[in-house]
């Protein structure tokens, strides 16, 4: 059984027990445990079920590469599915549950799939579930979805906090093993600003477990000493529990710091996402051991040899009492020796190499361990727990030579450097035939902004496995990285190290070499996704020859571990099946992140109210306090209307319109864009920007202008006021302010850069209030001594006045058809003016109104609205705005475009008014039908509604629309079907419904 040893466990604090639960069972671990080591210490070998066949699954690994042991961690607002137990630190009160089974982990109905496995080979679903057609959606797919998936979906809103962090370093070293420590030291000593990050809570990596001597002492001494040196360097930052998640272009690097996962109730964020710019990156990310592909290699109790060693040395856990070691390399002997020295039984080491191992093998033999060379495992006995192995000749087909009783199997198929981060941004690999691994190709490193490589691999990540070579290589990488960022490395040598000489690995991709189909159907490559040797071979037979095809067809490497254990073995099997060398097959693409990172950490602080900033006018708070029903417009919020208690939104809008038309309304128009255009060439510039002639505008006057893009389409409109000979104030739409300002700057800087013009976007510098309605002059006159009469400030004029003691600018313009002024004051005085106007207007029943009343009043007057009458496909000519298009100008932006054949086509739809025959309101966006259908069978149409409202003034529906030959068809009746098919008939009329002669605004 799997148990805690009486002593040992270098990472444990045995004095501090921690209680936790697994599937409701109360268990106990100690401080320093991972959830994995704590489960193993409690003999919890079965921890989950596989994705497809629901096979029993146990822990395989001890780190980020774990494919099987995923649990639902925590509860309610802190529930997290698919958490790897090997990278979860134990804390007191932890609760977790296994996944993907029903009704229980021990007895899972879904395990029937395992019995049917023969009928469910790779890609079977492409060949089945085809008939009858409706069954896919209604029967097959729901069943597949239910049995697929892994963890449960969270239900509650996450209440933890997450944050982003920006950082800049010369050199970032990823991985805090001996290689990373040495590289960071070398770079730090050179004076570079260095960040060293380690994904686990511990420094030193595998070295303390694997042994060897550095400067004549155990690696721990080197680790402690180097760490102390690094801590003493001011230019070095150290972080544990932080993973290098992804490498992106130009040295952009994501660091994923798990600040609070191990102390859920501590103050601070749960995760911190570091967005780092690194001059150079050193990947000292180590290597991952590969499983061996023999039948039954997925039975709980079959584990990576290094993992069994880790659990023994780091956590004082023995996975089994009797552990058979099976290997094709020397490293696994370390596991056998470690176990033996702890007093555990190692019945045999099965070494697939005919010649066996080197010095470590000799040591094992000396300890009395039986070593069988040239042998392999034919079959693992047991279902939920290893009971024994049958061994066979590796060179044969799997005929059992002997059965060895055991309760754990330690397997090692060799090591693969962790090349993920090297590869994310385009670093290339080469296949090292002798060492049987893909290694970073230093000549094809990812390149940065300067075209030079910015990533270097160090230590095992670079394919170095000899301790001395690891340190040399890491030292060189750290120095080179420092040098590349302009620092001078110190002339020091890497520490001397020694380790036992090892015999070379012999690649074993299938065990035994000639395994029968029966064995291959039980030899797992991808444990989580249930991909076996036979599946990859089937894919190859069916023509899925590209490594990407094979991956996608079999789902090899697509599980949550992204194939960390399975990819190399899988592509070796594929290469073998295709009869081609491994490099010709190549790898699939490595994509970020290295291991999955929380979506919340990516979202960062931007949640709830902080999701997106809201732009506020000076009157915003008043609106909020007076029933504003908000409408988001760009980054602003504008009141759609002001709802009074008991009022519907529709009621409020109708009331606001009537009050304004009858007496006095107030509009917060501060969001309208305001751009100053100044300089000797300002007039000339605006002549190019607007379709109108602006240079002839007199100071003191205003003109409504249209702006098109170079493609001819109407993009914005607004009133331009000439402030003096050199200065114009251009009003834009609310959403347009920033884009129009950018548009102006673009043309000024990139086309007419010799023109003397300066622009400034002063939108937020001024509050602007529309004072609208027959009583508008009266209320202003109450507050001002300036002459605001029809003569003193005529229509489309502006003047500076003093109003309620404030210096203000009054524009006499109207978007409602009423007598109307827009008053502009510095933003800081906006609220004061608003309050004064409310106070002074009280006797006239002053009524603040929102955007919907604004829209209705402009529609009643037939004024177009950008975004309603225009949609990016409409040109001013469509809207009957010829009067605003200067005939005198040779050029303006959009003029050439408007000369293209389709733009001058007389059959373009044109703006008209629409009046329903029954007085009802046309639905938004309705189309007018025409006879017949087009070549694609679509109903022909001849127009559409662009704006439609119930007019409270007229007591009926009014609308504007674009209609084929519309202006020539006054009085024609069109049919507008609603979505439900009911047809509304509307007559084509002039698009002005109210005060056609403009008498109301001209008083």
């Amino acid at each position, binding site marked *: 059984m799997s148990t805690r040893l009486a002593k040992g466990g270098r990472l444990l604090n045995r004095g501090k027990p921690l209680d936790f639960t697994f599937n409701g069972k109360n268990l106990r671990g100690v401080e320093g445990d991972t959830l994995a080591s704590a489960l193993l210490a409690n003999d919890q070998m079965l921890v989950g079920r596989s994705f497809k066949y629901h096979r029993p699954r146990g822990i395989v690994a001890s780190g980020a590469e774990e494919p099987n042991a995923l649990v639902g961690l925590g509860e309610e607002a802190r529930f997290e599915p698919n958490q790897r137990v090997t990278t979860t630190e134990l804390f007191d009160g932890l609760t977790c549950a296994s996944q993907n089974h029903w009704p229980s982990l021990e007895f899972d109905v879904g395990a029937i799939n395992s019995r049917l496995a023969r009928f469910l080979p790779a890609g079977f679903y492409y060949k089945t579930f085809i008939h009858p057609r409706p069954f896919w959606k209604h029967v097959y797919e729901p069943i597949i979805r239910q049995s697929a998936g892994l963890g449960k979906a969270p239900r509650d809103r996450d209440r933890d906090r997450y944050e982003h962090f920006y950082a800049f370093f010369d050199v970032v070293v990823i991985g805090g093993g001996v290689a990373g420590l040495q590289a960071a030291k070398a770079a730090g000593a050179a004076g570079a600003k260095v960040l060293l990050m380690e994904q686990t809570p511990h420094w030193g990596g595998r070295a303390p477990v694997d042994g060897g001597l550095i400067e004549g002492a155990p690696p721990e001494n080197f680790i402690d000493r180097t760490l102390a040196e690094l801590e003493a360097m001011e230019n070095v930052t150290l972080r544990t529990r932080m993973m290098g998640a992804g490498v*992106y*272009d*130009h*040295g*952009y690097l994501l660091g994923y710091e798990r600040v609070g996962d191990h102390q859920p109730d501590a103050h601070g964020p749960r995760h911190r996402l570091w967005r780092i*710019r690194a001059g150079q990156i050193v990947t000292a990310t180590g290597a991952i051991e590969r499983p061996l592909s023999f039948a039954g290699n997925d039975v709980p109790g079959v584990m990576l040899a290094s993992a069994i060693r880790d659990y023994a040395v780091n956590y004082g856990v023995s996975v089994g009492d009797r552990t058979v070691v099976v290997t094709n390399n020397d490293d696994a002997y370390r596991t056998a020796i470690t176990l033996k020295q702890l007093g555990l039984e190692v019945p045999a080491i099965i070494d697939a190499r005919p010649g066996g191992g080197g010095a470590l093998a000799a040591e094992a033999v000396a300890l009395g361990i039986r070593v069988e060379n040239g042998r392999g495992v034919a079959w693992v006995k047991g279902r939920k727990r290893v009971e024994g192995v049958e061994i066979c000749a590796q060179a044969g087909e799997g005929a059992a030579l002997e059965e060895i009783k055991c309760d754990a199997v330690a397997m090692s198929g060799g090591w693969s450097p962790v090349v993920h981060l090297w590869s994310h941004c*385009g670093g290339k690999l080469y296949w090292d035939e002798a060492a049987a691994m893909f290694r970073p190709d230093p000549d094809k490193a990812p*390149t*940065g*902004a*300067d*075209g030079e490589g910015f990533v270097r691999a160090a230590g095992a990540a670079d394919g170095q496995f000899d301790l001395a070579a690891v340190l040399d290589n890491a030292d060189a990488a750290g120095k080179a990285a420092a040098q590349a960022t302009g620092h001078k490395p110190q002339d020091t040598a890497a520490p001397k190290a020694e380790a036992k000489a090892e015999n070379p690995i012999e690649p074993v991709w299938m065990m035994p070499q000639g395994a029968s189909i029966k064995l291959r159907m039980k030899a797992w490559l991808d444990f989580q996704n249930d991909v076996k040797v036979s599946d990859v071979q089937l894919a190859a037979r069916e023509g899925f020859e590209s490594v990407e095809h094979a991956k996608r067809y079999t789902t090899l490497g697509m599980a949550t571990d992204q194939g960390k254990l399975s990819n190399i073995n899988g592509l070796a099997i594929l290469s073998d099946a295709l009869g081609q060398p491994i490099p010709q097959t190549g790898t699939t693409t490595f994509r970020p992140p290295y291991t999955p990172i929380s979506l919340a950490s990516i979202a960062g602080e931007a949640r709830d109210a902080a999701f997106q900033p809201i732009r506020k006018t000076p009157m915003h708070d008043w609106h909020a306090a007076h029933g504003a029903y908000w409408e988001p417009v760009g980054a602003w919020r504008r009141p759609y209307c002001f709802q009074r208690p008991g009022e519907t939104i529709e009621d409020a809008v109708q009331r606001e319109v009537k009050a304004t038309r009858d007496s006095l309304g107030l509009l917060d128009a501060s969001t309208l864009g305001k751009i100053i255009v100044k300089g000797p060439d300002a007039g000339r510039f605006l002549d190019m920007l607007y379709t109108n002639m602006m240079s002839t505008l007199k100071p003191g006057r205003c003109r409504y202008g249209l702006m098109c893009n*170079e*493609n001819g389409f109407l993009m914005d409109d607004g009133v331009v006021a000439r402030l003096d000979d050199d200065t114009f104030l251009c009003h834009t739409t609310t959403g347009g302010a920033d884009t129009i300002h*950018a548009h102006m*700057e*673009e043309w000024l*800087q*990139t*086309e007419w*850069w010799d023109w003397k013009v300066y622009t400034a976007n002063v939108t937020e510098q001024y509050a602007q209030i529309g004072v609208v309605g027959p009583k508008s002059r009266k209320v202003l006159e109450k507050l001002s001594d300036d002459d605001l009469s029809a003569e003193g400030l005529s229509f489309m004029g502006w003047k500076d006045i003093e109003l309620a003691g404030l210096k203000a600018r009054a524009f006499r313009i109207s978007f409602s058809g009423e007598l109307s002024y827009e008053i502009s004051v510095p933003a800081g005085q906006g609220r004061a003016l608003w309050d004064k106007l409310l106070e002074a207007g009280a006797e006239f029943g002053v009524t603040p109104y929102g955007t919907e009343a604004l829209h209705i009043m402009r529609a009643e007057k037939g004024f177009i609205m950008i975004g309603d009458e225009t949609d990016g496909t409409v040109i001013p000519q469509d809207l009957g705005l010829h009067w605003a298009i200067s005939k005198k100008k*040779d*050029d303006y932006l959009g*003029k*050439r*475009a408007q*000369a*293209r054949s389709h733009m001058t086509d007389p059959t373009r739809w044109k703006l008209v008014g629409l009046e329903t025959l029954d007085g009802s309101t046309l639905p938004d966006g309705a189309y007018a039908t025409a006879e017949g259908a087009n070549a694609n069978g679509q109903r022909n149409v001849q127009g559409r509604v662009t704006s439609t409202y119930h007019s409270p003034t007229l007591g009926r529906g009014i609308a504007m629309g674009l209609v084929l030959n519309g202006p020539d068809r006054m009085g024609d009746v069109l049919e507008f079907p609603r979505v439900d098919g009911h047809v509304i008939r509307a007559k084509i009329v002039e698009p002005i419904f109210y005060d056609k002669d403009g008498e109301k605004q001209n008083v």
Partner: protein
Amino acid sequence: MLILTCPCCGVTAEETEFHPGGEAHLTRYGPGSSDDEFHGYLFEKVNPKGVHFERWRHANGCGKWFHAARCTVTLEVFGTYSAQTTEPPQHIKDKISAKRPGWSWREFA
């Protein structure tokens, strides 16, 4: 995730500080130009696999437009320079020639 240096204010900054603006060194065709000329100017952008000259604006910075010479395959930036010019400066062309012998981009190679 690019890093660019604004030649106007000298700041080297994250891509998020800039706004991309498409092909550089376009000749504007207005009224009087042929359909082909206008179409070429507005739509037929070069879309090279390799060396590219493009416009950027330091939108969340000094607000100035500038030009960048960049490789669209490796994202290497050969240099940035003023937008108020009709042709890339010689030193940038030389740098590109050194790194990408035989490159071509419109008439500037």
